[in-house]
């Protein structure tokens, strides 16, 4: 059994405790916004928030998030602004992604946006070096320059 909240909704699932959260979300709950990329926490496509912090769900067993609040890309826009009053609203991040025409194929962008929103919640005005060390997601289309300019546009909100 596994019990956790996803985007504010409580779920009780009859699944193995070692099942990665990614597959619980995708196959058990049918929430496909969170993507499978590598399965070993290397690419970040599966990034979700646990209690507001980015984690890689492909290597996170559901037993380790028992009773926790999980936010996925589908619920990000509805999350209340975090404790940091300087952090941009999640919907502003999504809008910046549209304004800067960031996604190409878009497959990595759920994870990219979850990683960036977690970074900005704790550090609303990151330096380039902080962006580089925190945002390690892989994007095969090479949206990186636009990810950076979108983050820059959100700084000092």
């Amino acid at each position, binding site marked *: 059994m596994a019990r956790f909240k996803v985007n504010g909704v409580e779920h009780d699932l009859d699944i193995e405790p070692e*099942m990665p959260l990614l597959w619980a979300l995708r196959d058990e709950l049918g929430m496909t916004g969170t*993507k499978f*990329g590598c399965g070993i926490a290397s690419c970040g496509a599966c990034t979700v928030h646990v209690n507001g912090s980015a984690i890689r769900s492909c290597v996170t067993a559901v037993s380790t998030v028992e009773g926790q609040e999980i936010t996925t890309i589908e619920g990000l826009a509805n999350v209340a602004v975090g404790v940091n009053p300087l952090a941009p609203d999640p919907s502003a991040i999504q809008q910046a992604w549209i304004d800067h025409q960031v996604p190409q194929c878009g497959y990595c962008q759920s994870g990219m946006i979850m990683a960036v929103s977690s970074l900005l919640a704790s550090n609303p005005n990151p330096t380039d070096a902080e962006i580089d060390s925190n945002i390690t997601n*892989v994007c095969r289309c090479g949206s990186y320059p636009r990810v950076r300019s979108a983050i820059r546009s959100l700084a000092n909100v």
Partner: protein
Amino acid sequence: MKISRRKFLLSTAVVGGGVLIAYSATRPSRHKLANADLAEGEERYITSYLKVMPNNEVTIYVPHTEMGQGVHTSLAMMAADEMDAAWELVKIEQAPAIDLFANGDIVTGFAGEFGVPSFLMGLIGASSKAIAEIGNLQTTGGSASVRFTGETGMRVAGAAAREMLIECAANHWRVATEECTTSLSYVQHNASGRSLSYGELAADAALLEPPEAPILKDRSQFNIMGKSMSRVDIPAKVNGTAIYGIDAHSNEMLYAALRLAPVFGAKLVSVDASEAMSRRGVKRVIELEDSVAVVADSYWRAKEALNLVKSKFETTENDSVSSAEIFARFDEVLASENGSKDFEQGDTDAAMESAADVIEGNYRVPYLAHAAMEPMNCTVHFHDDMADVWTSTQDPLSIRGRVASIGGLAEEKVNYHISYLGGGFGRRLPFNWNVIDHATLIAKEFDVPVKTLLSREDDMQQDYYRPAVSSNFRAAFDANGNLLAWHNRFTGPIQTPGAARIPYAIENQSIRVVNGDTHVPIAAWRSVDHSQQTFFTESFVDEAAHRAGKNPYQFRLDLLQQHPRHRKVLEVAAKAAGYGRNLPAGRALGIAVQESFGSFAAEVAEVSIDANDQPVIHKITCAIDCGWAVNPDAAKAQVESGIIYGLTAALYGEITIKDGRVAQNNFPDYEMVRMATTPEIDVHIVESGEALGGLGEPSTPPIAAAVANGLFILTGQRVRELPLKNHNFSRSIPVAGI
């Protein structure tokens, strides 16, 4: 439909009082569906079509798949602009995978460019049957959508719609068509101040004959083309609602994890699945000719159970093949065979004999995987004597045909569900059938949908790879340092004719290809042969420039007198990059240029060496002449993307073969450029006003040579093998005077 034998434009009334206008082309084909509505003896298929409804909404159907290149938006812009539709009233849909809608403009366009390209036909067995089946394609590839489908299909359909709507309004008002104008989805009669919306005219327009040859706009008349429009696919990609093939989902769905023969071509011998079958959720273990699959009620359970399956594959003659052996074989063939002609002019042998100086350079690049972010997958549901298919593909029609053929169904009994692609880069083109075939055979055992999904490791080890290539050069100079001869022998096969040829004015040239076949499956990889060949040719021409004691940029310009578009992009890139300025200590600029897919791209790389003797790429400046840009910001995004894709390959990309199989597993040993390693990228679109060129690929070819040429200036070390991560660079031997 109203059809005349000679016409390419069709129109018909649609339910609800609208009109549908389509651009079609003829083809020799066995397909029946289109034939039902067509004049006897002549089959047509529709490449572009649009619909105007009474509520004034225009729906534009795009016959290409969206993999991030923005094609849904750019093709719709072309039709909407020609018909003077209000962009806000335009809806965009992808054309369904049925016979009526194929994109033969691409085949025709490529035929004009260099014959039907091999990547459209598979690499082996380009038989007459394969050629006939070209008519079955709905391909997205070859940087071709906008320049072929857009120019010869979408714009014509849009212009025809506009002329019909004008004719309809003029009839209504009893005025001459010349007195009417169009704007923002209305026809106006300025003399009387009257206007009618396209929606109001749609039902009557359906009664008119479409024009035979509608007049396209001049560029000065564009209202939508040439402006940066927001891509229509992006909003769904920021909130998790965009659906990719992997996202097919239903409650009764089953999941298959697949283990393919690790050595390409090996057959399955035996399986022990006893332990796997006892695992929770496991339904079946299925043995296929070259693989074994576990089917379970979740992917994770299937994959975990597959790890417990013991399988034995036959031994093959390739079980001990290694990359070293493959390259040794290449060297042997290059040394012993003269190969077949790619391009010859003058007398290279004689020029070598009489030369004052000859230089040599032997180059090679490894296999590369595509590594699209969405691992390969395919969901098939057999039910009621038919099948539904969900998979991310660059060619829905071919997928439909393949699933039908493997699944034993008629093509019209297969229903393909459109989705976005989580990257394509050539992996999802027709003839790269692994996963599609397996998913079909596995799903045939069930009456519920079955999703077959490769792990990242399997995706990397069961790809169709960019070929490893070895390429040997000699160049001859006269006593004044002028290039007399260019001698090049490289391993094939040639997938993109002309990629190894050079634009430089060298009187004597001999470029020949020798057999480079191995057991490793190969396919098109973003920019196809241009990515390897441009690294070779643009590096070696750089070697020649240095040997001649000339500035590599000026050396190129001097040899490009007959190629103004090459010259122009070199000049624009060099100027924007500040080529020739005093650089900070430890920095250098490398330059390269290549024409591919109808576009001309020059790149300048600003590089340095870090404390670990590894290259650092600070900035890439690119000038690209693609004729003109339909959607300029999306065009720049494609150029940025192609540069980063090529830079990843140059820095890190290496698939090695060990014991007949791929040695790499996942991103840690097949590393990617990420945020921290992405250089600043400065893109300049050079609008020559020439015919549209492609944009998805042409920025990839020059990047490796531009970087390597910069590193040479900095270190004196000539990189003749990629990737760069395998080299240690010394910062102590800068090349003087450049």
